[in-house]
């Protein structure tokens, strides 16, 4: 139901994002999906990568504040309205969405969702037979 996401604390400095990407590149880690949340002082880089453990180790070694979080991963049909349909189910269960991002992997459309209640979200996915995607499938 979930896959591991890297969350990296990122100060607002020119070239800073690229420094992190360079660390990943040097260690031959592929970025499958990436999004940056920003505020006036700092941001959070969120990324799905080919090898989360190796990425964690490499970034730690360079003194970044980094952690791995389990985030809901859903496979969507590549058709209009499919994302809206999924979110309807969460809303009906009174689950609040903290953040969401989507990406394509091969022919698959993938939705990453962070809600305020992980357990309840998993129940909703199971009850509605929503299709999840595993880390193996996107390697």
């Amino acid at each position, binding site marked *: 139901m979930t896959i591991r996401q890297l969350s990296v604390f990122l100060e607002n400095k020119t070239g800073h994002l690229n420094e992190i990407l360079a660390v990943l590149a040097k260690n031959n880690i592929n970025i499958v999906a990436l999004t940056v949340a920003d505020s006036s002082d*700092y941001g959070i880089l*969120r990324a799905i990568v080919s090898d989360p453990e190796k990425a964690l180790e490499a970034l730690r070694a360079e003194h*970044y504040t980094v952690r791995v*979080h389990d985030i809901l991963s859903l496979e969507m049909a590549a058709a209009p309205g499919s994302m809206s349909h999924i979110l309807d189910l969460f809303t009906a269960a009174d689950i609040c969405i903290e953040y969401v991002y989507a990406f394509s992997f091969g022919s698959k459309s993938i939705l990453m969702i*962070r809600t305020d209640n992980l357990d309840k979200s998993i129940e909703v996915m199971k009850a509605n037979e929503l299709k999840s995607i595993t880390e193996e499938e996107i390697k």
Partner: protein
Amino acid sequence: MIWNKEMECMSRNEMRDLQSERLKQLVNHVYTNVAFYRQRIDEMGIKPSDIHSIDDIVKLPFTYKTDLRDHYPFGLFAVPMKEIVRVHASSGTTGKPTTVGYTKKDIENWREVLARCLSMCGISSDDIMQVSYGYGLFTGGLGVHYGAETIGCSVIPISGGNTRRQLQLMSDFGSTVLACTPSYALHLADALAENGYSLADMKLKTGVFGAEPWTENMRLELEKKWGIKAFDIYGLSEIMGPGVANDCPAHAGLHVHEDHFFPEIVHPDTKMPVADGEEGELVFTTLTKEGIPLLRYNTRDLSTLNRSTCECGRTTVRMKKITGRSDDMLIIRGVNLFPSQIEHVLLEMGETSAHYMLYVDKVNNLDTLELQVELDEANMVDTIKDLQNLARKIEHALNSAVGLSVKVTLVEPKTIARSEGKAVRVVDKRKK
């Protein structure tokens, strides 16, 4: 005007005799009534009877701010609580404040020295004094208030803050004297125009500024901005509060009321007394204090002493205006702050690393404080909201612990430089 000619213009020899008498009484008082001092004096291998004159003061032990903290809250009081009529407190080096207590006689003496200070500034019963120092546990407000009443001023106890109302009352009531921190006086001056006032609306003649170190240049700037005479009042709660010393119209050093507070200057490293004119740490012995008398309290303020007769006619010893300290204490908006207090709060919370940097600055003449603290991995979250909540939580904890508002910024690990010797924890951009 000289409030107490007898004391303020006494010959040096007579003053020495008076101080010698008072020191002997003081040492007996603390030896008999304060366990801490009895132990310290015993440890030094001396007896109260070894103190014959003020010159013997060098035989006595020093007192530090940490001693007050270690005996929090009333451990150094020399009289039973039933004789204490007032308690004040200021921030200590860590979580606990420094507490002081006053007997009726102490309050009388405080009024007396403040009456001398205010008279030195040319203030009299003809004046309307706006006291914009904070009232409460801080000694500033109430201390100046009592002194102003003693000389018969009409006192406006407005306390600190609320700039708009300060200016309105200053204009409506026709205040002739303003008593506050120099930085607040500058802030008020700069706020005149935007609040619809000009100097023509004000009757201000005199400023009594203190509770933070400030330069002679700032004094001149305040005189110019307000069109007033500005004076420096010095004090610290451990010794009495405001009124330990004050400068006269000659502005050639601050007259210490040395019949009550005996000053020494010691070398910051060796703690040995230095010659008059040489700079060192300012040390006070409270010759007449009953509630919490202190022997050789090291203020950590840096100054020099001058025992020559002043052109104003006073013979009392003058201390050079304080512009620095020998420790890392900061004075922010009149509030004492040690970086160790910040560290204490961070360690107690345990939600960030203990690597931090304090940035002190002045914006619109008011001190600002920013804390940059490194976020560690255990507390890394994946939403901005949670990071902001963490920063706000630290801000609240600091605010309640040190009584100052602090802007907290989270930074990445290793962004704060590690130093090999003594860590640099403070960048004070106020210093020019």
